Structures are given as structure tokens and as C-alpha cells.
């Protein structure tokens, strides 16, 4: 890329702009659609300029939903999704950082075996083990509860593996210096390893939060009580609810609201996120 080729540049930009347009246009349409009154869509023509009903549509979606068609207001669903995503994220992070700590810094029998067992679970995403997991959760009486929504998704080989890789790049002398300085294992973990992992934690936080937020199949399976519906399910409910035509303006408002938190998380943690994926401070 040293050459400064005018046509090459032009061509590259065309491709990039096309790519961006393909991704952005549907999002734009969703946002536009969420600002028009219900009648607009019946005509079958999709307007491309913002309408005037934005406030009305969003307040309806958040506070009322389509109550008559069995879709609760999505305000509650947003909250549910948030709790589930946070529980999954925090649970995953704390369990995986601790297990990585154990695997890297302690010598115990079957250490390698345990590592591989954790690693193997990478091959078993929720969708593969969904029936037995459902059975277990049902037997524990955790259907229709936040515990049921989040606990089965908490175990994370990916995060454990990433933390393990990071810990292995931390110079061993740091641990030895801490030992000489009188810090026991947990103190070393808290005072030295955790602060050094901040950027990694942030990066994983973003990834895990979005993973948790976007869960669809699992919440759909174990929640029958509208009290525990999550926002991603809510979109589906909005579309299929009742016998009437889908209310596209409300569906689109729901879609936009559902997409918003992951975007915000990325915006706010972008700096740390990129740092965590690219940089290791030693």
C-alpha cells in the first residue's frame, strides 16, 4: 500500500462505500420506519424520509406493547435483557478469569485434563446441548427465572482460554516479586493480575454482553411467563403476535431499541476494547 494509485484509491473507496451502504441501509430503513404512523406501510411503499410519529411509536412500544395481542410492553423486556446480559457477562468473566488463574498459576493433579475439559466445551454451544440443559434447568425449577436465563450460558471456554493466554504472557518474575513482597496467591491476583487484565476484561465484557443480549433460542425455550420475556424474543412476539397484520412501526421501534444497548456498550468501551484486543502491557 505504498503506491499512491489514483484509480486504485477510487476503486477501493467505491467497494468500501458499497459495503458500508449494504450494511447501513437496512438499519436506516428500520430507524425511518419506526418514525411513521401505522397507516404508511399498508400502501406497500417504504418511505425513505423520517416521519413525524417517532415519539408516539416509541412510547407505545415501551409502555404498552401490543397488549391485546399478548405482547407486553417492551420496557420490561429491555430491563430483562439487560439483567440477563449483565448476569451472563459478569458470571462468565468472573468464572473464566478465576479458572484461568488456577490453570496458569497452580500445579494440581489433572491440571491439563481440566484445561482440556474446559476447552472441549467450546464445541458445545447452547444450541447443541439445549434439550439436556433444558431438562436440568427444569428439574432445578429454574424455568421462568433470571437464574434459568443466565446460569446455563455462563460457562465460557473462550474467555477462560483468552485469559489463560494473557496470563501466560505476564512475566513469571512479577509473580515471584509479589511472593518476595509478601503477597499470597489471592493478593497477587487482586493487586497485580486483575489490574493488568483490565483491557482484556473490557474487551471480553463487550463481546460477552452482546452475546448475552442477543440470546434468542434459550430465552424463548425456558420462558413462558411474559414477565421474563427478553427484548430479542419481543421482536418476534411483535411480528407474530395475534391474528392481525404486524404493526411494522412498532416492530421497527422494538428493533431499534433492541439494537441500541450493544451499540452503546461498544461506543463507551471502544477505546478499552480495541486496546484489549491489540495491546499487551507488560
Amino acid at each position, binding site marked *: 500500500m505504498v503506491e499512491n494509485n489514483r484509480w486504485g484509491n477510487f476503486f477501493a473507496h467505491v467497494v468500501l462505500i458499497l459495503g458500508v451502504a449494504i450494511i447501513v441501509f437496512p438499519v436506516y430503513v428500520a430507524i425511518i420506519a419506526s418514525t411513521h404512523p401505522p397507516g404508511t406501510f399498508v400502501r406497500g411503499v417504504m418511505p425513505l424520509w423520517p416521519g413525524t410519529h417517532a415519539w408516539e411509536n416509541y412510547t407505545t412500544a415501551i409502555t404498552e406493547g401490543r397488549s391485546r395481542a399478548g405482547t407486553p410492553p417492551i420496557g420490561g423486556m429491555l430491563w430483562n435483557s439487560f439483567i440477563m446480559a449483565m448476569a451472563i457477562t459478569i458470571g462468565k468473566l468472573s468464572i473464566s478469569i478465576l479458572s484461568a488463574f488456577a490453570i496458569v498459576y497452580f500445579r494440581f493433579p489433572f491440571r491439563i485434563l481440566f484445561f482440556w475439559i474446559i476447552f472441549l466445551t467450546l464445541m458445545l454451544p447452547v444450541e447443541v446441548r439445549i434439550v439436556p440443559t433444558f431438562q436440568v434447568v427444569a428439574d432445578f425449577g429454574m424455568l421462568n427465572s433470571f437464574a434459568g436465563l443466565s446460569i446455563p450460558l455462563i460457562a465460557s471456554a473462550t474467555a477462560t482460554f483468552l485469559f489463560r493466554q494473557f496470563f501466560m504472557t505476564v*512475566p513469571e*518474575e*512479577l509473580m*515471584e*516479586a*509479589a*511472593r*518476595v*513482597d*509478601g*503477597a499470597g496467591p489471592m*493478593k497477587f491476583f487482586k*493487586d*497485580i493480575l486483575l*489490574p*493488568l487484565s483490565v483491557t482484556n476484561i473490557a474487551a471480553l465484557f463487550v463481546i460477552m454482553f452482546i452475546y448475552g443480549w442477543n440470546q434468542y433460542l434459550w430465552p424463548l425455550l425456558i420462558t413462558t411467563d411474559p414477565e421474563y420475556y427478553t427484548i430479542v424474543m419481543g421482536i418476534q412476539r411483535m411480528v407474530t403476535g395475534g391474528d392481525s397484520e404486524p404493526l411494522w412501526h412498532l416492530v421497527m421501534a422494538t428493533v431499534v431499541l433492541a439494537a441500541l444497548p450493544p451499540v452503546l456498550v461498544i461506543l463507551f468501551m471502544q477505546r478499552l476494547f480495541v486496546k484489549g484486543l491489540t495491546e499487551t*502491557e*507488560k
Partner: protein
Amino acid sequence: MATITMDNLCKVYTGGVQAVTGVNLDIADGEMIVLVGPSGCGKSTLLRMVAGLETITDGTLKIGERVVNALEPAERDIAMVFQNYALYPHMTVFNNLAYGLKNRGFKKAEIDRRVREAAQMLEIGQFLDRKPRQLSGGQRQRVAMGRALVREPAAFLFDEPLSNLDAKLRVQMRVEIRQLQRRLGTTSLYVTHDQLEAMTMADRLVVLNGGVIEQVGTPMDLYSHPETTFVAGFIGSPAMNMLPADFLRAKVAAEELAHLPAKADLIGIRPEDFSTAPPGEGDLVLSGQLLLLEPAGAESHLHMRFEGFDKNVVVRLSHVPAAEEGQDLTFSVRRAALHPFDLESGQRVA
């Protein structure tokens, strides 16, 4: 302040590698002991055993009057300076120094006093609020020293602390560490592979080879009276020339070697013991061809080839001679400068 007593220390790694074998060493209070040897000789392992970072397979280790074999590093009252400094990257210099004290439950005022005192001693006072990555190599080295200093421990352990510095800084820090150690009078164990560093810093030198102590003594002892061919070759730079006795006997008059025992079949001569001055009574006279002249300003190294010996012999002169490469030169060597060894055992024989 304490003595360190090593009694038959052994280290065998899981897998059977014998890293340290039967080390006996008594370190006096306030003494600076330098462990020196080639890489893999077990010097770092031995230091880490004293620190408590490696378990002791056999033998007893006492710091002061306490047997510390089973104690954690923190309980041994030692402080260690690591080769790569091992500063906590996310902590300021102040916190790096204070961490060990905080963990030991010192009062805030006391921590503050000690840190500032150490920082002043090491001239890092203006960096206390900085992070290690904002410091130069030499400054980091000082912080690492400071972390050991604030603890006021019974012993300092240095694991090649200067090997990450450039040559100029290394010489400067060498002097500073030595002065500091003298002033504080803290028992110190210092590991290095640099024989010059070892010679200049040590009260007593310990030369290790293959996990075994070759010789212990003051630097000058080891220099002027090496007990083994290994020590002879390791201490002094350029290394001592090792000449077969048969070759020398063919070269010089028989009576000039008559004082050497019959078993001495390998004779060591230090490069600096060759002289261009006219030979005195009983001196050996050797002449050979100059292969290569390395002038170094104040001194010069001459790579000589003597007939009948197929290796280069290095001669060090305290001046640069006006000689051409290929020219024949004659040197005299005093009898007393000969180091006789037994070739087979590598031991000194007189």
C-alpha cells in the same frame, strides 16, 4: 543483617536434572558474595533457592540462626532484585516501593518515610508518581533496587541486575550498588555471568561450574591462585593461555621449569604476564610470530603463534607495540607467573 549458611545444598528438578550439587558456603554478616559462572552452571538456581523461589531438594539453608528451607520467600526476610526488574507495570514508582511494606502491615507514615528515604538515596525522588514504562532502563533498575532497599531486609539477592543495561550504565550502576551495599552493610548475594562485574564487586567470589563450587575466595585470590583450569580460564580477560608442559620444555632451558612438580603437564600463563622487557634471572624466554595485533588505546592484545603449539597464544601489553603482523617477537615470563595444572583432573598442582 544476618549470616547465610548453606550446608550441602542440592537441587534436583523433577525430571532428574541435577542443577546444584552439595554446595557448602558460609556468608558472613555484611559480606558481598558474587556467584559467577557460565550459563547453566546453577548460579541462578542457587540464588533462587536462597530466595525461596525454588524448593531445596537436600541440605539445609540458614539465614541468621533460622533454618529457612520450608519458609515462603516473604518469611525469609530477604529482598530480591530481578534481571528484568519485575516492576509492577500498573503501579506508580511509589507504590512499587511501598507494596512489600503494605503487605507487611507497616504504618502509612513509616512506609512514606522509608520510600522517600530510599528514593532519595537512589535519586529517583522526582519519579515517584510515574509508572515504570515512563522510565528509562537505568531508572527502572534504580526502582528495582529501591524496592529491595525499603524493606531493610537481612539479605539482598541480586539476579544479574545489570545485564539489561548498556555498557556505560552498567559500569556506573556497578559502582553505585557496591557503594550502597558497603554503606548499608547488608549481606548480599549477587549473581552474574560477567567476570569483570564479579571481580570488581565481590568481597568473595564463588565460581560455579555444573552445579558444583569450583573455588571460593577473594577476587585477587582467584586471579592469582586459581585452583582449577576452569577458574583459571574463567577469571581474567583475555582468558589465561593453557600451554602443554611438553611444549614449554622443548622451548626453554630445563632448569627454568625444574621448580614445577612432575605432574604439572599443563601450564597456564596469563596474557598480561608476558613482558617485552629484557629477561631477568631465571625468566622464561619465548618467541613466536605475531598473527594479529588488536590495539585498544591504552593496551593491546597480540595473538601469537609459537612453533610447536597449534593454538593462538594471547599476549596483553600495556602499550601498543610498533610491530607488523607476521613479525617475530620475543617475550619474557617470570617463573612465578606460571600456573601449573594437572591436565587430567584440571586441578592445580603447586
